[in-house]
């Protein structure tokens, strides 16, 4: 394995901008790594070597010409979750229904990455339309966790998290509707951030649940995530839910946090996000993390968010409801898969047969669940009540943030489970999101940062940090301080080749 793939994004950027290595050789090193290990990991659905190298060469040309790099990450390659549109490059969302579709436009996140000179290595695997917590719901086969190839890499953004842990990419983009950035980060010992809802444009992010979806940065360090955050965040007039406010200074916050001093910071431990259903090793790792935060000078108190216990049921009504409507457009009329167009079937029949063929079981389940929750006679009891719970959870957060600056909890209740273990038990699968969902419902910012390995199975555990909306910088300050004190976790993962 080339040394270049072991460096952080910040280190790579320094070397590229100083002319020590070229962006092209950096990109090529990662493409070589993908060629070597992705047959086992299957993080990528599509590798765009030509596009990535072209972008890298453009950065090298700038540097050779003495032009200032387009951004602090210019030349550092990245893996993009296949739920964000890329002009002329396949975008499948892990679904058969979009197999072969070449979007005619770039998502705003994609456009910002291109403008920042970030070579896009390819599109990463995911649960179909981002519905899942294991990446087993991809129509193109699962992604495997580099820590243990028999285990899940988290989901829905398992491709992005695995690409980082397997050193195939130093940076990745994920999207987080109920934890799809943070849970994969936790189970691969990488860093993932769900920015404040409205902080990063959703234009070109193929919608699962519009009021919850948020794209965010993934990296191996908090600083790398911060650098990427600043590239992709900011107001976008193409997204009506995009917040027209300055992007929080997350890079400064990460650098400040890395100095290791949290004095003056008040941290709340959420009482409801622990206890029954949580793996012992996860809870012990979390307790150790809390102790470390205290050592860093933070004041830690316990806070109660009583309505968080209703977050999971509310989520599993709101998200399916919105998805039942968002996915209606996949109807075989204008793009994507079409079956049974043999002259004997009507448009209505072709729609039904195509949707039956094009969607996997989890997507169908959620579409029907949402159709039910929105239908007349059930709306008030299900969707309507879920929206009220959303109000209560938002109030819980507001009350908690009156007392503390950030909240902490485990990111997930358990370490990565075995492939196939929960795939036929939707409810058990849904429990993976129990800690991450409240932040989505309220629109808050949240991060997962590695907190070591569980003492009983040696598998990664994540610490979740949650901040109020528009206070994303607090995540980075606390996350970077903790990361520095804790020391690297991913380094414990030996060479993938050795692990086999």
């Amino acid at each position, binding site marked *: 394995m080339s040394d270049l793939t072991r460096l952080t994004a910040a280190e790579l950027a320094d070397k590229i901008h100083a002319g020590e290595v070229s962006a092209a050789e950096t990109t090529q090193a990662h493409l070589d790594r993908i060629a070597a290990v992705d047959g086992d990991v299957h993080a990528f659905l599509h590798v765009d070597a030509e596009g990535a190298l072209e972008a890298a060469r453009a950065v090298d040309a700038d540097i050779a010409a003495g032009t200032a790099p387009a951004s602090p990450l210019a030349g550092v390659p990245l893996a993009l979750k296949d739920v*964000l*549109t890329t002009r002329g490059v396949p*975008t499948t*969302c892990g679904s058969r229904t*979009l197999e072969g*579709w070449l*979007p*005619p*436009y770039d*998502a705003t996140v994609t456009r910002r990455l291109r403008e920042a000179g970030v070579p896009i290595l390819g599109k990463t695997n995911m649960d179909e339309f981002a519905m899942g917590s294991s990446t087993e719901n991809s129509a193109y086969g699962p992604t495997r966790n580099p820590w243990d190839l028999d285990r899940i890499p988290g989901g829905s953004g398992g491709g992005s998290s695995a690409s980082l842990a397997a050193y195939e990419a130093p940076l990745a983009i994920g999207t987080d509707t109920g934890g799809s950035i943070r849970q994969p980060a936790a189970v691969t010992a990488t860093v993932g951030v769900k920015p404040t809802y409205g902080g990063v444009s*959703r*234009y*070109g*992010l*193929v*919608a699962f*649940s*519009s*009021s919850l979806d948020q794209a965010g940065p993934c990296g191996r360090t908090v600083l790398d995530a911060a650098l990427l955050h600043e590239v992709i965040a900011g107001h976008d*007039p*193409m*997204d*009506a*839910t995009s917040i027209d406010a300055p992007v929080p200074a997350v890079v400064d916050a990460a650098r400040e946090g890395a100095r290791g001093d949290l004095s003056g910071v008040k941290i709340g431990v959420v009482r409801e996000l622990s206890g029954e259903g949580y793996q012992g090793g996860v809870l012990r790792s979390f307790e150790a993390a809390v102790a470390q935060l205290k050592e860093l000078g933070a004041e830690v108190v316990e806070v109660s968010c009583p309505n968080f216990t209703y977050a999971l049921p509310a989520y599993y009504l709101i998200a399916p*409801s*919105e998805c*039942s*409507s968002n996915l*209606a*457009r*996949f*109807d075989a*009329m*204008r*793009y994507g898969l079409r079956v049974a167009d043999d*002259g004997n079937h009507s*448009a*209505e029949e072709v*729609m039904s047969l195509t949707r039956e063929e094009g969607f996997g079981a989890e997507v169908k389940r959620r579409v029907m669940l949402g*159709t039910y929750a*929105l*239908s*007349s006679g059930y*709306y008030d009891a299900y*969707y309507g009540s879920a929206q009220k719970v959303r109000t209560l959870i938002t109030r819980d957060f507001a009350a908690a943030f009156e007392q503390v600056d950030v909240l902490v909890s485990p990111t997930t209740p358990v370490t990565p489970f075995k492939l196939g273990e929960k795939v036929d038990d939707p409810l058990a699968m849904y429990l993976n999101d129990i800690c991450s969902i409240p932040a989505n419902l309220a629109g808050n910012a949240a991060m997962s940062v590695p907190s070591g390995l569980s003492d009983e199975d040696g598998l990664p555990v994540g610490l979740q940090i949650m901040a109020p909306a528009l206070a994303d910088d607090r995540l980075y300050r606390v996350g970077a301080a903790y990361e520095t004190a804790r020391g690297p976790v991913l380094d414990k993962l030996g060479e993938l080749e050795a692990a086999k």
Partner: protein
Amino acid sequence: MTTAELMDYAEVIERYDPVLGLEVHVELSTNTKMFCGCPNSFGGDPNTHVCPVCLGMPGALPVVNGTAVESAIRIGLALNCDIAEWCRFARKNYFYPDMPKNFQTSQYDEPIAFDGHLDVVLDDGEVVRVDIERAHMEEDTGKSLHVGGATGRIHGAEHSLLDYNRAGVPLIEIVTKPITGMGERAPEVARAYVTALRDLLRAMDVSDVRMDQGSLRCDANVSLMAKGAGEFGTRTETKNVNSLRSVERAVRYEMTRHAAILADGGSIKQETRHFQEADGTTAAGRTKETAEDYRYFPEPDLVPIAPTREWVEQLRATIPELPWQRRKRIQEDWNLTDEELRDLVNTGAIELVAATVDAGADQADARSWWVQYLNQQATSRETELADLVITPAQVARVIELVGSGELTNKLARQVVDGVLDGDGDPDQVIEKRGLKVVSDDSALLAAVDEALAAQPDVADKIRGGKVQAAGAIVGAVMKATKGQADAARVRELILERVGA
């Protein structure tokens, strides 16, 4: 359905009270569509006014057109509605190929304007107040072309072709409260209401209000209640009503159809019916297998609209004088009798005359042109006065040319015919068809000499003092010049020539 299955209208009125509900869809004449920057223009090659948003492509997001919201508020104010302090868009979910997202973004239980009224003047001058339930914003669908089969209509077609140029065009839907107590005048009230609404919207310059092009569409809900019953009957909704005249015919037809069924002991099926222009009947649509369940829920991609009261008042100040106020003022300004005013209103000419006067014409001349000649032309061309291609400014120009002697009345009518035939504006028609009065004396003199030479006996009579005999020579000259001479000047020249 044959006429035997209809009840005689007088008997209908004797036995039943009609109840009307009118839903009018108005396409706004904004520059762009409701939720994207595609041009809102009629015509154009198929699928050339489209983008990822209005094609419902994965990842695309809507953003509300601010001008459309202003138009909606202005329409609401002109209809004496309350303007919502806070309202949202909702999704109306149903699958149909001409609707790219398979939901219509519309307002549901939170319309931007509600509880208004419109005073409507009937042909005899009676004023009826129609209560307005709501005016809400939504988007139009694409257009389907049905190929194969005998009729080119949906039934029997082999396949369909879709053009989304109109998909996403802003619509305002204006819904009346039930209109009761109108008795035999119900059809007339329906027509007068749509006419008043059209005039109002035209005066506000928010829509082209062309029923023939679909920029104003009326769905007529009709039900009957037996005299003294006090409870509304089952209604039918008649669509495809494409002219003001059809509104009246459709309502009247449905009343006679309902009555015949009810009198026969039958019951009315709640259904959508289509008006058939050719024979003035309505036909049932295909019945749906299951009742629609639109699963409305708040559109998560769009944030709420909360018009400030200042904004509403600013918009109120931009509403022009409303047609009925204007009528009153015009009657006073022009000193018209009630009958003259009624002629203007009934022919639909009032705004056209006013615009012609604004363009510099005398009101009596303008009235005469629109109420008489142009009204005849509209009838013979089977169109509405307002839908004639001639503009008030062009009529004013014709009047000006007659006033200056450059056109005779006869020539002026030929010029107007040319404009109506699409040959351009009056000056272009004059040029193209060579219709100008021959004012070149030498050309006229030649024609006069020729005529005098041809009729020497008449010439002698004139010389002998019988000046009125000149008429025959004038006639000959006019014939020779194809009517393009000024008869008074010809007479002068004749008298000059014979030395009388």
